[in-house]
C-alpha cells in the first residue's frame, strides 16, 4: 500500500440512458456527440484534470461501465452509447452502487481523500422495471451514497426525477417532446460540464449546481 498522500479527489459518474426511445428522439446521437465535447471541455481545465476522475455508465435492460474511473487526460477516446432495449433504472443503480463502492475503496486505499461522489443521471423516460426503488434505496444507504443530479427529457417524469435527485441537489427537466428533446439534452451536457468545472474549482468538495439552460426547468429534490 502506498504511503498516504492526503490528495483530495472528486469522482463524477455519468449514467446515460441508451434505451430504444433515446434513439427515436435523437438522444443517442446527441450523447455520442456530447461526450467528446465534454471531454474536450474537461481537459482544458488543469484543476479538473488534477482533482477529479470521470466514469460513464450506460444503461438500458442492463447497465455497463463503458468508461471506468479515469483522469480526463488519460481518456484517449471517449466511448459511445448505442440503442439497446428498455429503461431499467434498477440495473443502473445497482451498477452505480457496486462501481462507486469499488472505486472509492480503491482511491482511499491509495491514500486519497475522497469526497462524496456525484452522479449525473440522464434519462428520457419512465423506468421499465417496477422495483427500481429497491436498488435506489440500496445505493442511497450504501457507505458511499452519492449525490445525484437527475436530468430528464422527452417522456421522463418530473416526480420520478425529483425522487431520484438527492437532498440539496436538483432535477432538471426539458425537451418535453421528441422534437425538442435532442436540443435540451445537448444543453444539459453543457451544464454537466460546467458543474464539473465549477465544483472542482471550489474548496471542500462543494457541488455547484448550474442554472437551468433555456427550455429546461430546475426542480427541487423530494
Amino acid at each position, binding site marked *: *500500500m*502506498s*504511503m*498516504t*498522500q*492526503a*490528495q*483530495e*479527489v472528486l469522482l463524477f459518474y455519468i449514467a446515460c440512458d441508451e434505451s430504444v426511445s433515446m434513439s427515436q428522439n435523437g438522444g443517442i446521437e446527441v450523447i*455520442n*456527440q456530447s*461526450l*467528446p*465535447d465534454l*471531454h*474536450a471541455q474537461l*481537459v*482544458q*481545465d*488543469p*484543476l479538473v*484534470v*488534477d*482533482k477529479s476522475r470521470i466514469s460513464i455508465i*450506460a444503461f438500458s435492460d442492463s447497465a*455497463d461501465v*463503458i*468508461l*471506468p*474511473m*479515469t*483522469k480526463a*487526460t*488519460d*481518456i*484517449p*477516446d*471517449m*466511448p*459511445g*452509447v*448505442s440503442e439497446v432495449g428498455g429503461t431499467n433504472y434498477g440495473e443502473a443503480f445497482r451498477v452505480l452502487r457496486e462501481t462507486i463502492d469499488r472505486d*472509492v475503496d480503491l482511491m482511499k*486505499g*491509495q*491514500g486519497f*481523500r*475522497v*469526497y*462524496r461522489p456525484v452522479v449525473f443521471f440522464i434519462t428520457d423516460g419512465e423506468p421499465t422495471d417496477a422495483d427500481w426503488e429497491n436498488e435506489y434505496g440500496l445505493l442511497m444507504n450504501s*457507505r*458511499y451514497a452519492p449525490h445525484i443530479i437527475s436530468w430528464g427529457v422527452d417522456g421522463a417524469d418530473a416526480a420520478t426525477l425529483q425522487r431520484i435527485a438527492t437532498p440539496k441537489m436538483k432535477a432538471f427537466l426539458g425537451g418535453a417532446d421528441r422534437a425538442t428533446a435532442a436540443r435540451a439534452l445537448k444543453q444539459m451536457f453543457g451544464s454537466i460540464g460546467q458543474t464539473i468545472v465549477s465544483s472542482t*474549482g*471550489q*474548496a*471542500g*468538495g462543494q457541488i455547484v449546481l448550474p442554472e437551468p439552460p433555456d427550455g429546461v426547468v430546475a426542480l427541487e429534490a423530494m
Partner: protein
Amino acid sequence: MKSPKRWLSPAADDHPTPDLSQGGGRVQGEPFVRWDDENVPDTESAEIPTTPTATERRGSQQQTSAVSPGVRNDPEESCQVVEAGRSHRPRPALAVADTSESNREDSSAKFLDALNENQLPGSVPERTPESASVPEPELGTDELLPLPMIDDLIVTEKTTFQSRPWWTPFKWTQLPEVGEAANDVRTAYGVGTGVAALACSLRGRRHRQYAGPNQDAFDIGLVKVDENCEFLVVVVCDGMGSAPFSSYGSSRVASLMSELIRSLITSKNLRDIDAVEGQLRGLQSQILDKMTREALEARPPGLSIFPTSIPPSESGPGDIQTTLTFAVIQNVRDDASEVSEMEAVIGMIGDSPALNITPEGPRLLENDQDSSGVFSTATNGAVGASAWRLTRTTVGEKQPLLIATDGVANYLVHEGTPTRLGKYVAKQWISPLPVLEFIRDVSFDLASADDDRTAIMIWLNRG
C-alpha cells in the same frame, strides 16, 4: 538565439537577517540563485491532449496510466540553491512516481524508498558553515557559471497545472482585478531572543486560475515587555471562500489580533506564559468582540475592496469571515541560555491548525477531525465568534512549531498518520532553513492541493 544568462540577486552578505521587531523581510535579498537558461523546461513538450475523435464503440475503454500524456515528470531536473558562504548543495529531485496509479519506475521512486527508510539522501543536509572554504568562482567577461534551477517539490507526479509555466497563454495564472492585491508570495522571517521564525504565504492554484487574490494572511512580530521579557506573537488567518471579502477579512483580522494580543501583554505587564494564557482565556469574549467591531467598522483607508461594495451598515461577519489561529511564545531570556524549550499558548477558531514538527513527523495539536468515510470539511469563523480553543505546547530543539492554513496542513497528516509530504517536512523543517528553500517547499506540487497556502515555522534558536 540564446538569451543572456543573468544573476538575479546579490550575495547574501549584503542582506543580514532582519529583526522581526522591525517587520518581516522579503524574498529580495535572499541567498542568490542562479538560473541556467538551458535548464528551463521545454514547455513545448507539455502538450495538452486535443479533442479526441468521437467513436461509438463501447466497452473498449481501459483504465490507463495515471501519468497524463504530455505532462512532464522529469525528476532528473537538477537544482542547486547556492548560498553565499555555503557549499553548492545538490538538491535531489523530489518527484515520486505515484506507484498506486502508475507503474512508472524512475529515479524518483528511489526517493520514496529512501523516504520510507527515513533516508533522504541530500535532502536534509547538515546546515553547518563547513563550506566557507568553497572558492568563489572566477568569471570571465563572456562566461558565467551555469545557473541551476530550483526544482519543483513534486509529491507524487507532476500535475497538469504545474506542467506549464505561469505565463502560459492558457491563462492558468491570472491577475486579479484592479484594486485587489494578488499576494502571490508573502514572506517574513527573522530572529528574536532565542527564537527564529519564518513565514510564507502563497496564492493557491484555484485563485490563480480564477483571478482571485490570496485569501490567507498572517502577522508575526515580537512583543518586548522589558529587557528580560519578550514574546513572539504569530497569527494566521484563512479567509473563507463563501465570504465575498474574505481576503480583506483575513488580513484585517490577522493584524487586529496581533495588535490586540500585543496590547494585552504590554498593558497588563504580563511576564510569563501562564499569565498570558490566563488573560487569553478570561478575556476571549471581549477580545473577539473588539476584534469583530474593529474589523467591521473601523476600516483603514487603503483597504478599498470591502467598503466599496457593501455599506458598513449592511455588512456582517459573513462578508469578511475567516479562520483564526494564533500562537504566543515566551522567548528564552538569553541567546546563550541552556533552556531547551519555550512555552507556547495556541488559540484556534476554525481549521487552521498548529503542529509540532518532530523527527517522526508532524503532529497535530488537536485531533484530525476527518471521518474515516468520505472526506468533508466544516469550518468555523472568527468574526462574530465569542470563544476560541486554547491549548499549550512547547517549542524545543527537536520540536519546532508550525502554524499553517489547511492548504498546507491537510497534506502533512491524514487520519493521524504523517503523509509522504509530512515525512519530508519533518526532516526538512526540523531546523531553520534558507528562505527560498522554504518557499519552494511550501510550493509543493500535489494534485488537488489548490488552496492558498500559509506556513509559519517557529524554532528554538540558540545560535
